[in-house]
């Protein structure tokens, strides 16, 4: 018997080695996105250490100062240091979408796998439910929920999580349908393994890369939507530092000729969202390549 060979293509999609492979294949954009997001996450974690000022320190004498050595991004209309607020804002601005994505993935994957596995009326009912949610504008749904439960981060996150369920459910259902037909899943059924065991231990881990790609894309969209809701005043409430809320608060300063308070958080939102989109696309591309 010869030594084991690796003649067949790897079916591991997101192991450590594949991340290296992404780099080796020169996918510079994906790598750049990973670095940008890594920096953002680090900034969020290290906010108390690296922020030069207290983000909520009001000093009306220093209001609307242009960028200087003391305040690298200037100050806002209440004299708070914009850079410190952008740094602290990274926490809520990243945690919010994370909550949205976790919630919608949990429910969406459950619904998607359930309808793919059971088929029949379960699938029909779940699919109609998903279509109805699709037809309903996400932001409108969010505003509705906020109207009921009151504004704040928690209610906007729950609202958007509901609004994002269909995206996760639809993707999951389609890949789970294909995976369900594979011989190894059939073999497990044939061995008398319970549906719960097969789906949770075998099917879901195998479709996880697809789900991860979709969830990463959703993360970017959720960030925009959350910022939008904060901008509209439904989400994070001032004076808490949040990028969307900062853009909203900076509008007045913008007219008065101080673009920094609105521009800085705006630019960071764009960088973060673009990075998440690139990363999502990168993962999706890699999944397609390895499983095609």
């Amino acid at each position, binding site marked *: *018997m010869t030594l*084991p060979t690796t003649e067949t293509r790897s*079916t591991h999609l997101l192991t450590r080695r594949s991340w290296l492979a992404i780099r080796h294949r020169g996918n510079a954009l994906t790598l750049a996105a990973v670095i940008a997001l890594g920096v953002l996450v680090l900034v969020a974690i290290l906010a108390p250490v690296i922020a030069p000022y207290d983000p909520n320190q009001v000093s009306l004498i220093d209001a609307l100062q242009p960028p200087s050595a003391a305040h690298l991004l200037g100050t806002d209309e209440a004299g708070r240091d914009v850079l410190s607020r952008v740094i602290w804002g990274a926490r809520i601005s990243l945690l919010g979408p994370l909550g949205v994505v976790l919630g919608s993935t949990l429910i969406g994957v459950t619904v998607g796998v359930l309808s793919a596995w059971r088929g029949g009326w379960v699938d029909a009912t779940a699919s109609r439910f998903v279509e109805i949610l699709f037809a309903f504008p996400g932001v409108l749904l969010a505003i509705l929920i906020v109207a009921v439960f009151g504004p704040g981060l928690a209610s906007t996150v729950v609202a958007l999580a509901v609004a994002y369920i269909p995206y996760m459910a639809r993707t999951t259902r389609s890949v789970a349908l294909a995976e369900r037909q*594979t011989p190894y899943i059939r*073999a497990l059924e*044939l*061995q*008398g393994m319970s549906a719960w065991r097969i789906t949770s231990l*075998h099917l879901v881990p*195998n479709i996880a890369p697809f789900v991860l790609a979709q969830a990463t894309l959703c993360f970017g969209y959720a960030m925009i939507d959350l910022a939008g809701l904060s901008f509209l005043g439904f989400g994070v409430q001032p004076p808490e530092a949040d990028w969307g809320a900062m853009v909203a608060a900076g509008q007045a300063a913008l007219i008065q000729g101080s673009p920094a308070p609105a521009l800085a958080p705006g630019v960071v939102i764009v960088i973060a969202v673009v990075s998440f989109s690139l990363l999502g696309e990168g993962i999706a591309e890699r999944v397609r390549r390895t499983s095609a």
Partner: protein
Amino acid sequence: MSGSNQQVDAAVLAIDDLRLDVGAGETAVRILDGVGLSCAAGEIVGLVGESGSGKSMTLRAAVGLAPKGARLTGSVRVAGRELVGAGRREVLRVRREVAAMIFQDPRAHVNPYQRIGAFVADGLRRTRGWSRTRAAQQVVSLLDEVGLPDPETLADRYPHELSGGMLQRVMIASALSTEPRLLLADEATTALDVTTQAEIMGLLRRLREERGLAIVFVTHDLDLAAASCDRIHVMQSGVVVEQGRALDVFERPEHPYTRKLLDAMPSRLDAEAPTPIGGAA
């Protein structure tokens, strides 16, 4: 009745007058038409026929598996338990405890994300509730039993790191983990090269002797069946047209279909293209 115990000893698998119909009214098709087959402990029975002759269907029916909307009549007894018309629980129990199956393409039949050790241990952990460590020890001895080198390191590998022949041995080890009495092999060597094929057949024959396994071996390769099986059933269009001791069937075929099948074998052709013989239902 001579008591079910004796019957169990006589035949681990006893299929009698099995009929399988799909569709209704004008589109109804009879896939199996009165199939009879038996396999005793320590016996290898070959089930030979063309694609579509119903051999895989017969094998699947042996573990109570029929296509959706199919009607199954007749009798399938596995270790004395009747499966036709049996409840879901009974069928599942047979699949978990008595019968195991191996397939043509081992690579497609394993979870690519699962390590070999976890794959083989699964049956033990699931049906016997063994702990991870206890199952792991048994896995090593199972991998060793099917002739895989260095079982300890192998258990930590992923399926894609193994060759097809090795993976088929892993499938066999997994099938054996719950100590079944009946092993159903569905074209288990078809995807392998000739040398590996011979090794796997040797392994199956050894296991048959050591464990007293009843093995039903489905193949379209009459040559291979004649060389490795004790008895052969030849199927055509959902009917067993000929059965008997392997050598008898091979050397003195009685049914014209068997003769045609033998004539269609490349080894018996003189550089002529093999002729299709119309055995599909």
